[in-house]
């Protein structure tokens, strides 16, 4: 329990109306998209860097843990207050501070919602590419902390590729700045990159300096149905080999298609066992040419049907299929473990075959879809927790999926982070020496282990 004098001090820092110990608020800030639940003792809504700095000093003096939180849409439990203490949410720090059209740079507060930022820069003809599927509600602070990715990352890279600098409150309450608004900068260590993907364990980001691109003139979306997942995977390699990097290269396997068939009115021939959604962007005059070229390249690889969207509505229809996937999986089984392994692009077919074997061994349905273009596969292990033994089977299957990805030179998580969900599996991927290096950094910066303790590395 966080003691009353700490609550009083918090109220003094941020104002009484921004501090709550009400049971209702503790419940409302106890969960994220992992659906796990840990009640914090107190919820704080700071609005300035200075307030956050003072909160961290107080927390250090009192040895009270602090859990940073954006929108709570994380898939690995990064924001969960696993040890009670303080939930510090940045959701009310939601201002876009600057959009510099001359230098193609923007400065934002961490609570700005990803899509709202994208819309704001697109209004002036600029472009912020990272597009996690949660972009309508996730915060940019959460995106940086998890180094979020999305379909467009094949061509444009992930969140960290757009972060030029940060203002950070350190675990002990100092305010530092890393990087800056210039495209180049080599003075000192690259702390900006260190913060990207640090999952709220090394500091709280209070300002984010973002690199922008000119907005492409247009885009073209196509849906290609294949008779096998191998054909789809070969198509991905063939496109890249021909020196075309599409904006997105999304795939869905046969089981995913079965779910989507049931969930939407989509007409998909039975012969189709895999799908690629391919999008290209750029100058209007090149789009048609590129789409046709792609269609030609992949035609011999077992294509059942190719649909090229002619209008915005048709393109939206194609994307709607992709977006309906996640929810439609419930039809297979009520509970899902959503892993997001990443393997080298060329190893996708091999990985899928490995997963098929695992699914058979444990006789549990595994549904795969994701970002074929960058080898990032969303592996959905579908079980019913109520059935005795299923949970144990799923856990074994997950471990084998991770081992399989690692054996192909891949990683356990491409986007969602470690948090608490994958903390136990860290030794599979990271050697003791590397882990020690990381923990040494954490220990030096956060001697009292009060900022998001127990995340990434188990205590």
């Amino acid at each position, binding site marked *: 329990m966080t003691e009353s004098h700490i609550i009083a001090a918090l109220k003094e820092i941020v104002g009484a109306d921004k501090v709550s110990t009400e049971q209702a608020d503790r419940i*409302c800030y106890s969960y994220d*998209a992992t*659906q796990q639940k840990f009640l914090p003792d107190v919820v704080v809504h700071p609005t300035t860097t200075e307030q956050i700095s003072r909160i961290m000093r107080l927390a250090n003096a009192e040895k009270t843990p602090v859990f940073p939180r954006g929108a709570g849409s994380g898939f690995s439990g990064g924001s969960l207050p696993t040890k009670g203490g303080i939930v510090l949410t940045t959701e009310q720090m939601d201002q876009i501070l600057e959009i510099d059209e001359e230098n193609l740079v923007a400065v934002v507060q961490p609570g700005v919602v990803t899509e709202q930022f994208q819309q704001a820069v697109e209004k002036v003809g600029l472009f912020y590419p990272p597009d996690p599927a949660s972009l309508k509600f996730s915060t940019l602070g959460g995106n940086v902390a998890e180094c979020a990715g999305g379909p467009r990352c094949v061509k444009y890279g992930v969140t960290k590729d757009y972060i030029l600098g940060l203002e950070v409150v350190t675990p002990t309450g100092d305010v530092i700045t890393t990087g800056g608004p210039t495209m180049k900068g080599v003075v000192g260590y690259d702390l900006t990159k260190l913060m990207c993907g640090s999952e709220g364990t090394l500091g709280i980001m209070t300002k984010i300096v973002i690199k922008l691109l000119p907005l492409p003139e247009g885009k073209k979306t196509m849906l290609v149905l294949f008779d096998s997942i191998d054909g789809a995977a070969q198509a991905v390699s063939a496109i890249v080999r021909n020196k075309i990097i599409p904006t997105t290269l999304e795939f869905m396997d046969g089981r995913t298609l079965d779910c989507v068939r049931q969930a939407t009115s989509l007409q998909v021939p039975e012969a189709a066992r895999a799908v690629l959604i391919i999008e290209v962007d750029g100058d209007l005059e090149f789009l048609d040419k590129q789409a046709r070229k792609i269609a030609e390249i992949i035609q011999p690889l077992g294509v059942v049907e190719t649909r090229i969207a002619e209008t915005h509505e048709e393109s939206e229809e194609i994307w709607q299929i992709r977006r309906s996937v996640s929810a439609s999986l419930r039809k297979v089984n009520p509970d899902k473990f959503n892993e997001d392994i990443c393997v080298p692009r060329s190893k996708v077919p091999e990985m899928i075959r490995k997963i098929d074997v695992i699914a058979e061994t444990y006789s549990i349905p595994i549904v795969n879809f994701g970002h074929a273009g960058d080898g990032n596969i969303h592996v959905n292990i579908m079980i019913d927790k109520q059935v005795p033994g299923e949970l144990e089977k799923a856990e074994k299957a997950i471990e084998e999926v991770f081992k399989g990805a690692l054996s192909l030179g891949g990683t356990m998580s491409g986007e969602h982070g470690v948090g608490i969900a994958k903390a136990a599996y860290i030794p599979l991927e990271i050697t003791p020496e590397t882990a020690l290096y990381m923990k040494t950094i954490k220990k030096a910066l956060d001697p009292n282990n009060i900022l998001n303790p127990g995340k990434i590395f188990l205590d």
Partner: protein
Amino acid sequence: MPRPGDSWVALTVVDRIMTKLKQLEDYREEIEQCVKCGACRAHCPVFGAEKHEGRVARGKVALAGAVLDGEIGFEAKVLEDLSQCLLCGSCCAQCPNKVPTEEIVAAARRRIAQQRGLSSFGKGLAAVLGRPKLMNVLAKTGGALSSLLFKKVPENSGLRLRFPAPYIDADRTLPPIAAKPFRERVPERIPGTEGAPTVAFFTGCGINYMYPAVGEAFLKILKFLGVTVIIPKDQACCGLPAVSAGAGGTVEALAAQNLAALNRTPVDYVVTACASCNAGIGKIYADLGGDYQTLAAKTMDIFVFLAQHGLPEKLAALPKAAQRTKVTYHDPCHLRTRGITKEPRLILKALPQIEFVEMAAAGTCCGLGGTYSVYHYETSKKIGAKKAANIGASGAELVATDCPGCIMQLQDSVNHAGLPQQVVHLLELVVDALPAVE
């Protein structure tokens, strides 16, 4: 603060009776369907204005679940969060698992009313609302609200729930109360031509007491199409504001009265020109089963009716005006969430004197939300301000919509923003376009 003797408090007797409406327990499965993804944060207007998890569907659903699990009771903070809901259904429309938050919140409000009486819900609201500004208004009993309202509007009308006199802010724009309510001005039956359908006109309180001109436009248009119209005098409020207030017993009493009134004469359809009434009868009554369900199935929005009965073609045949007025359209939540968005636009686009322009976020709630805006006027104004900005940016001179509640709230928002637009019912534009009929 409601005082003893207030109509609001008097309602509690009926509302403590167990109702046929679904109970909070009946929603356990739906509550468990929430996967905590957070997608509703992008769509909930209240969350957009308040940026607090207690205000968003995910938070409210979590609290409702915690109440069912006995983890928390109906304490002040829970009442406040549950009161912070427009019941607009925007969350459910975009939720991957279609969690019906608006129904869950309404069921929770009924539970609160059953356990503690409506007045205690009111008191809870008042306690948490104890902001100085509102307290001042409370002191100035009456305020801007026409005192006529309470002489002319019956005790069980939703308008009373929407605007309990002491809660009305002085700076709210309200339409005047009609000197003579609409249903008292017109006969109960207006015959049409042989072979054309017969419909009952469910007027709702807004048209009856505040916007009788809309009712008159309705009749002229249906006369133009030769439709026979029945306007039962003894129809009552649809009950939707009572749903919003958690007054389950009142909802059922009103439903019974309307069933009797609307079933007296056989009709092909029951037609509404108010989105809330359409949802009240078309959706809430369906939950009551039996004859209510039959009534619900017969209920149709006026623009769906007009689109199905040849009006767009007739309008399109009229010569286009040289000088056309730019008009934009606001989707009332109670139509949008029921899938009715095309028909009003079809008719607007066919109007010869109109140039239709789409505004950004036309489907976002206006912020009225049944009883919501009375108790949370400040948040409601913030939601309205976003709407007003979009209206301003659209370049339209007029805003058309299909719900008296939205008209009132949108006009208030536009006025607060200092913008010149007028908000009208789409029927008023349709009637302007028709050749004069006698």
